[in-house]
């Protein structure tokens, strides 16, 4: 797959279809991969990498890249295409400057899941018939792929590319029977106190590194409220640790209706906080209150709460008081 992508990229660069290509650059370690823009074919040939660790969603980088002169190609996995469409809907990506290469994807590996199984010193990875062969400095290991995939891949919502200019590999289907809301349901069934304890337990680990915000394709404000002195919350000393936790709740509200559930927030969290659950709660609520809605499914579709329409009854049919307090 890596070579296929690389050769196609080189071809496009050389024949002048594109000026730049957004992909993944190899790092010091095989799992240490950085999204980057390649303009030099030689650089691309030497440093481009695509493997089971290339989880990063490249859509967000297009906000800056597509605003520049010339055309940029980008490799997008099925789930990334939803983010791409959502950003197009929000007029953040100059579509005419982008050449989308959709790539087939079965799932991406969480390096933490490997480490939890005691696999360390990783030097290579390849997939073979549903299992992963991992080269380490201690020898080769084999693990069932499903067990070490990231949570978002185990509960993959769609293998279908909602947008592409060309496709490498096959296009899949939307996964109708995915279990991504199971944990949300469990949380809903908890008492308010239990839920509060759960989230306190998770969110208290937050070190406010801002990685979740910085990676999130929906968090693309010109000026983030948390960076804005006028907002009144910038560098504000927290009165208690709960106030600090509010960061994530505010962020979830900000991306509600625009979050495509790409799962990047949880992927990058150094404290392994399941941040995607906050977003999924909103997605589930939207589905239940307004009918099924998938952000980024197509360009131009507005979230049910960000759309003024006279066609349907504007008021949700269900109004529930939160919690059982």
């Amino acid at each position, binding site marked *: 797959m890596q070579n296929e992508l690389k050769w196609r990229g080189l071809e496009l660069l050389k024949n002048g279809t594109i000026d730049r290509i957004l992909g993944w650059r190899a790092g010091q370690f095989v799992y240490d991969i950085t999204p980057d823009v390649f303009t030099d074919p030689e650089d691309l040939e030497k440093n481009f990498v695509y493997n089971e660790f290339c989880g990063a969603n490249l859509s967000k980088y297009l906000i800056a890249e597509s*605003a520049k002169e010339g055309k940029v190609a980008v490799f997008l996995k099925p789930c990334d295409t939803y983010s791409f469409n959502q950003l197009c*809907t*929000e*007029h*953040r990506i100059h579509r005419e400057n982008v050449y989308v290469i959709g790539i087939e994807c079965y799932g991406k590996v969480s390096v933490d899941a490997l480490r939890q199984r005691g696999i360390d010193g990783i030097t290579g990875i390849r997939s073979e018939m549903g299992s992963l062969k991992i080269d380490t400095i201690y020898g080769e290991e084999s693990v069932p792929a499903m067990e070490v995939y990231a949570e978002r891949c185990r509960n993959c919502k769609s293998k279908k590319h909602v947008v592409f200019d060309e496709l490498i590999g096959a296009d899949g289907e939307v996964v109708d029977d995915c279990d991504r809301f199971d944990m949300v349901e469990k949380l809903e069934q908890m008492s308010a106190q239990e839920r509060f304890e759960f989230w306190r337990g998770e969110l208290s680990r937050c070190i406010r590194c801002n990685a979740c915000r910085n990676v999130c394709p*929906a968090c*693309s*404000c*010109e*000026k*983030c*409220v948390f960076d*804005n002195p*006028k*907002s*009144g919350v910038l560098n504000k000393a927290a009165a208690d640790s709960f106030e600090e936790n509010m960061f994530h709740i505010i962020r979830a509200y*900000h*991306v509600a209706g*625009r979050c495509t559930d790409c799962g990047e927030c949880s992927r990058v969290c150094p404290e392994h906080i399941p941040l995607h659950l906050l977003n999924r709660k909103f997605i589930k609520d939207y589905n239940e209150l307004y009918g099924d809605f998938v952000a980024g499914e197509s360009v131009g579709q*507005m*979230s049910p*709460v*960000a*759309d*003024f329409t*006279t066609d349907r009854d*504007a008021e949700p049919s269900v109004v529930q008081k939160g919690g059982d307090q």
Partner: protein
Amino acid sequence: MQKIGVFVCWCGSNIAATVDVKAVAEAARKVPGVVFSADYQYMCSEAGQGLIKDAIKEHGLTGVVVCSCSPRMHEATFRKAVQAVGLNPYMLEVANIREQCSWVHKDMATATEKAIALMQAAVAKVTLNTPLTAGMTPVTKRALVIGGGIAGMQTALDIADAGYEVDIVEAKPTIGGKMAQLDKTFPTLDCSSCIVTPKMVEVGQHEKIHIYSYSEVTQIKGFVGNFNVTIKRKARYVDEAKCTGCGACTEKCPSRKAPNEFNMGLNNRTAVYIPFAQAVPKVATIDPEYCIKLTKGKCGACAKICEAGAINYEAKDEYIEVEYGAIVAATGFEMIDVSPYDEYAYTQSPDVVTSLEYERLMNAAGPTGGHLLRPSDGKEPKTIVFVQCVGSRESCSGGEMRGKPYCSKVCCMYTAKHAMLTKDHYPDTDIYVFYIDVRTPGKNFDEFYRRAVEQYGVHYIKGAVGKVTPEGGKLKVQASDLILNEQLHIDADMVVLAGAIEPNKSARPLATMLTASMDTNDFFTEAHPKLRPVESPTAGVFLSGMCQGPKDIPETVAQAGAAASKVIGLLAKDHLVGNPCVAHSDEWMCNGCSQCETVCPYGAITYEEKEFRMPDRTTKVRRVAQVNPAVCQGCGACTVTCPSGAMDLNGFSNAEIMAEVDALCR
């Protein structure tokens, strides 16, 4: 630093009995920024306003908080007062310590604590307030009346007589509405069409009134003084300008199976039709569902006979856009579908009819030429049972409600009328009226009803009809007499159901287009139930007739005139002072995501590409939101939708609201 004055109103004992107003004034003096506070019996009085004015002058106040009733009551009063002494009117805030405090609490300590919190919130807000100046918008001097029944006609006539252009949009091929279908009117028993048709003619001939019959409103944009309305002119396949209304086509038309709406479907009409003799405009309309030419492609009889050449089978729906300054909803009513009331056998026997059908059976222009004949066999009925409140005054205790909770108001009176008219023409008829209560408030109403009972010998029975069974050409009516506490069995020839009145089905989508509010029964709500009964809470939208609630003809006409006077008051102005509390976007923060544009109900937001000079001296072109302040109504939908916080509302800025919340949570 602001210098704020706080003025606490007693409102007689309305506030002072539950809130320690002195303590509130005392507490105000301790709030940072407050330099003066006072309490007074009636702040809204001349003397109270004087107190505020003097304090502004004496202490150089830059902001004023009045703790009193709801701002809906006296905000305008106090704004004018502060403006009179040179303070910007938007530097005033009202803390509602009456409706939201003293009226809802009993305990003085609690109420006082809450009043202090509300005062503190208002002070926190006014501290951040900035002077605002309202813009002016011109007024389009043309009114739109939606619905051409008696309500719409009267409103249109009154507005037109004042010299303003009025358009009536009527869904049916003719104006006249339900009143044109009625036989006689209570309590005078004068002929309904004799009094409504001259009105129709007057409307039709008025040089200031234009009728769009067979038309519908499909889109409304804009705001008070400047509405832009799209009207769909349904294809009637007859050129209105050419048709002379001679009726030759209706005689020639071979398709004669279309139910006649004017006679409540009791007889049939031709596919090309003029609803009734006095229709205005007197123009034929082709019913595309029944026209042989339009359905099968062959026929053309009407086109051949028409000397004016008015028939056009190729006609299409047309859409026109017109500008209006004011809109009046006069969409009227319908009778509910009584068929779900299976116990009355409406669907089982043609002799069970609704009151409106009975009205047509009595009418000289009706299907029987005014001779009361029962629909099944064309014989004169000898025993008639009237059932009141079919679907009216229902309660939802004990399961699902089939009908309406309200009283339809006109049924008691028209049933007395039906009973008397029937007795007049056929004195040997036995008439029973089953009722819950007989409601006859109104001039000469009770006398009218008593005449039915005392003079005409109509049997009024307090009780309910349990079941109607068609059997052997009769209607077996099983009923209970609640006063005598006995079961009754009546062999009736006809049963007449006084079905509940409900708003016309077109009202709900219209309300959405108008952003006007409705109650749960789909009646339009008034801006104030007592003091602004003909205005909708949406500026520039007025209410006339049954669309606001059940009422009889004189009430409808009175309300129609009242709505017209409100419209005239609006159109008489050359300019409207706008609302300065409009949204604006911080272009440096705007992402250009378009969410505000899509949530804006008024179409006030557009996007522009702008060049930004960045800190590193490069130029960046960005797509940013622009608000048209003349169109913005200050609803604030954009400010809460904006993910980046770029949108803000003058007078209700995010910072001001947060300051209020912070003050309340302190």
